[in-house]
């Protein structure tokens, strides 16, 4: 099976997803890899790297250690740094070479935890999956191990699935909090931008979870299982859709039901010639906001791993460049990251909507805050 691209970019990988999800929580994340991936993550995927210290490291794996199965070096190095830096937890991540040699990360995590006395978690990454897989595992780990509740429900909403890879800036998360507060809800916790590990202690008291990227879905299901909290999936983009999403949260809380709001896009024909391209929740929310603001339908092209519940009728899951180009050939309007533009037909209108997980920092300055505002995309 070959997956190739002549000219478009690629999404960042699972290891970056773990690092991004856990960045602000005071833990130590170690990617068991040679070099390069740390620089790649820190340069292209992590806007907080310069201004906020976080213990994200690589192990500096060498060929001889990989071949000889020298796990002791990895264990000793992690424990030595942990002893010196005192992280609140440790997460260890696999990369391609350990995947090939069959490194047992569960066993490594267990040994490191015993030796260091610090809670340690194995993230089952291999550098060959998308960032959503890594971020999802990290958020799920938090939901299982760090979320708690007092037993008294508040009229609060938690935000799940926030990373700069999808949301870019804290300012956009703050806009979501502002919108929730204007909608009459209290602030719950956020996984995981602008908060702390300790904040998660009250996650179980929320009346509803708002899942703002597909990486937050697994954590939402855990919180539902542990605390009975229903979840709503969507981002409050555009004025009309923000209103609808508010109603969905109220309904979900009242009925204790889950609502995948961003996929509720009515009857759309298969030949709908407007498409929004990208991560399922972001793109689905843009499509719904577009539809409610303009009265025109839009399909979503899901370019990443996604859950079937996030896919609306007439949406498609396409990852390969040649198939995307074929799909775009029949479109009159494509809303996507600018690095998709080279494969969009010249006859179609192209509305750039940068996505950090795809184009890194190239267009970071022009990533819009669409929360509860009229869309100003170049339609």
């Amino acid at each position, binding site marked *: *099976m*070959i*997956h*190739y*691209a*002549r*000219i*478009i*970019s*690629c999404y*960042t*990988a*699972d*290891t*970056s997803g773990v690092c991004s999800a856990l*960045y602000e*929580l*005071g*833990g*130590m994340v170690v990617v068991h890899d040679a*070099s*390069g*991936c*740390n*620089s790649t993550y*820190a*340069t*292209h*995927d992590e806007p907080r*790297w310069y201004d*906020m*210290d*976080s*213990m994200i*490291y*690589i*192990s500096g794996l*060498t*060929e*001889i250690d990989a071949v000889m199965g020298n796990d002791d070096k990895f264990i000793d*190095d992690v424990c*030595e*740094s942990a002893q*010196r*830096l*005192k*992280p609140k937890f440790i997460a260890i991540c696999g*990369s*391609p*070479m350990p995947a*090939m040699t069959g490194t047992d990360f569960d066993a490594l995590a267990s040994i490191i935890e015993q030796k260091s006395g610090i809670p340690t978690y194995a993230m089952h990454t*291999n*550098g*060959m*999956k*998308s960032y959503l897989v890594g971020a999802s595992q990290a958020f799920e780990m938090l939901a299982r191990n760090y979320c708690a509740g007092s037993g008294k429900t508040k009229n609060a909403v938690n935000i799940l699935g926030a990373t700069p890879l999808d949301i870019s800036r804290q300012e956009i998360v703050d806009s979501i909090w502002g919108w929730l507060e204007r909608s009459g809800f209290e602030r719950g916790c956020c996984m995981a931008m602008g908060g702390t590990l300790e904040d998660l202690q009250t996650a179980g008291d929320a009346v509803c979870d708002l899942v703002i990227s597909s990486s937050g879905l697994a954590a939402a299901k855990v919180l539902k299982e542990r605390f009975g909290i229903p979840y709503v999936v969507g981002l409050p983009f555009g004025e009309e859709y923000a209103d609808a999403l508010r109603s969905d949260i109220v309904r979900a809380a009242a009925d204790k039901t889950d609502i995948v709001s961003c996929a509720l896009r009515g009857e759309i024909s298969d030949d709908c010639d407007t498409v929004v391209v990208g991560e399922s929740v972001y793109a689905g929310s843009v499509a719904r906001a577009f539809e409610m603001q303009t009265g025109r339908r839009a399909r979503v092209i899901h370019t990443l791993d996604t859950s079937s519940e996030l896919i609306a009728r007439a949406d498609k899951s396409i990852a390969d460049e*040649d198939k995307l180009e074929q799909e775009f050939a029949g479109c009159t309007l494509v809303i996507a990251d600018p690095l998709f533009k080279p494969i969009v037909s010249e006859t179609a209108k192209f509305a750039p909507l940068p996505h950090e997980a795809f184009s*890194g*920092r*190239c267009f970071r300055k022009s990533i819009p805050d669409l929360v509860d505002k009229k869309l100003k995309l170049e339609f």
Partner: protein
Amino acid sequence: MLKKAGGEITAPIGIKISQASFPRPFDTGLEYSPPARGDWNIVHMGLLIPQSHQIYFCAQGCLRGVVQTTAEMDAMDRLSWAYLCDEDYADGSMEYNIIDSVAEVIKRMKERPPCILVFLSCMHLFAGVDFDMIIDELEGRFGGIDFVKCYMTPTMRFSGLAPVPTMYRQMFVPLRECEKDGGVNIIGYNWAIDDDCELVRIIKSAGVTLRQLPELTSYAQYLEMARSDINITIIPEAAAAAADLEQRLGQKHLYLPVSWDPEKITDNYQKLCEQLGIQMPDLSQDMAQAKAALENAAGLLDGRPVAVDFMAAHKPFELCRLLLEHGFNVTRLFVDVISGEDEQAFEFIRRSYPEFEIYPTVNSSMRFFASSEQTQNEYLAIGQKAAYFCCTDHFVDIVGAKDMYGFDGIKKLAAQIADAHQNAKDRKTVIQHKGMGCQSCL
């Protein structure tokens, strides 16, 4: 203001040089990546070959860095890729997956490039992929394109030739034997050396053609590098490329290493003149100007502490020695490994300036070094990492001694030190640009 997401420093990070051992003064362990990005990677280097195209085969995680490097250079039309999935590396299909992917990429091109650099990863080499067979098959299918074996194999960085020397070597593989014209190449350096430099002046005074890859604009010009008789290298990482060309094309290798020692600089030019068969020019004025420029800059700094990092220039200890001997108050050097070529200067500083401090750059505690600095702009830094760690906007923005060779280089460095002392730079923006001197969309 830096924010802190947990963690604490409980041990001192830097050491006095008197306590440092050669060549690795610090223990290895988990590694941190400071946000100074001016260094070049294999993408930047490969793009120096005019009209060439690069195709990378690796896991998505490894692909990300090279793709984003290219995107920031607005050069995505010169890079393609294919990623490996879990199921791909154990089913024996790797070779044909690569060949088929290259074929598909070529099919989708409007125009075929004259040269394609095919990059395989650690996973391929670990799985024993037959790279020769892949290249043979591709050359058989696509006549007129030079396919070059290239490697993105960081796991193998201590197994045989390191990645950078390997890349420099492979970049000249397409050169084929042809009639020589007495020209001179400078190879294995990322930037062209300009006409102000004595090195270029001497070569041109001999009436021979000088060829520098960063100045070339067509593949035909690149292939003409095979016509030169001499390959000059100035950094040790280029030695493998020169050795390969000497063996294959009979081009004489002349190593004239970057140096901050006036005697060694003079020796380099003496060797060059002997090789070119010309009289050694009188460089006493260049030497005197360099000395005066340094003394002028040192006077302006008036004792201000200076910090240097290893990424700024080859032989950072030799650079520190030059500055110390000309009145600069150099107190800090950020360096992880000391090169053999720099041992003499390291020993000199250890003997003469035992209080001189050295710091690692990748040690896990260095994550918190910048945020623990008490003062802003106290230091004058030479290099991006030194600027970051010392929290100073007064820095010489230099990587790999760009534009600084010979006495002319020392003059330029002194002028930039004087400028940096007086004028602040936007540190956060400047040091995060990748690939010094390359186009950037940031």
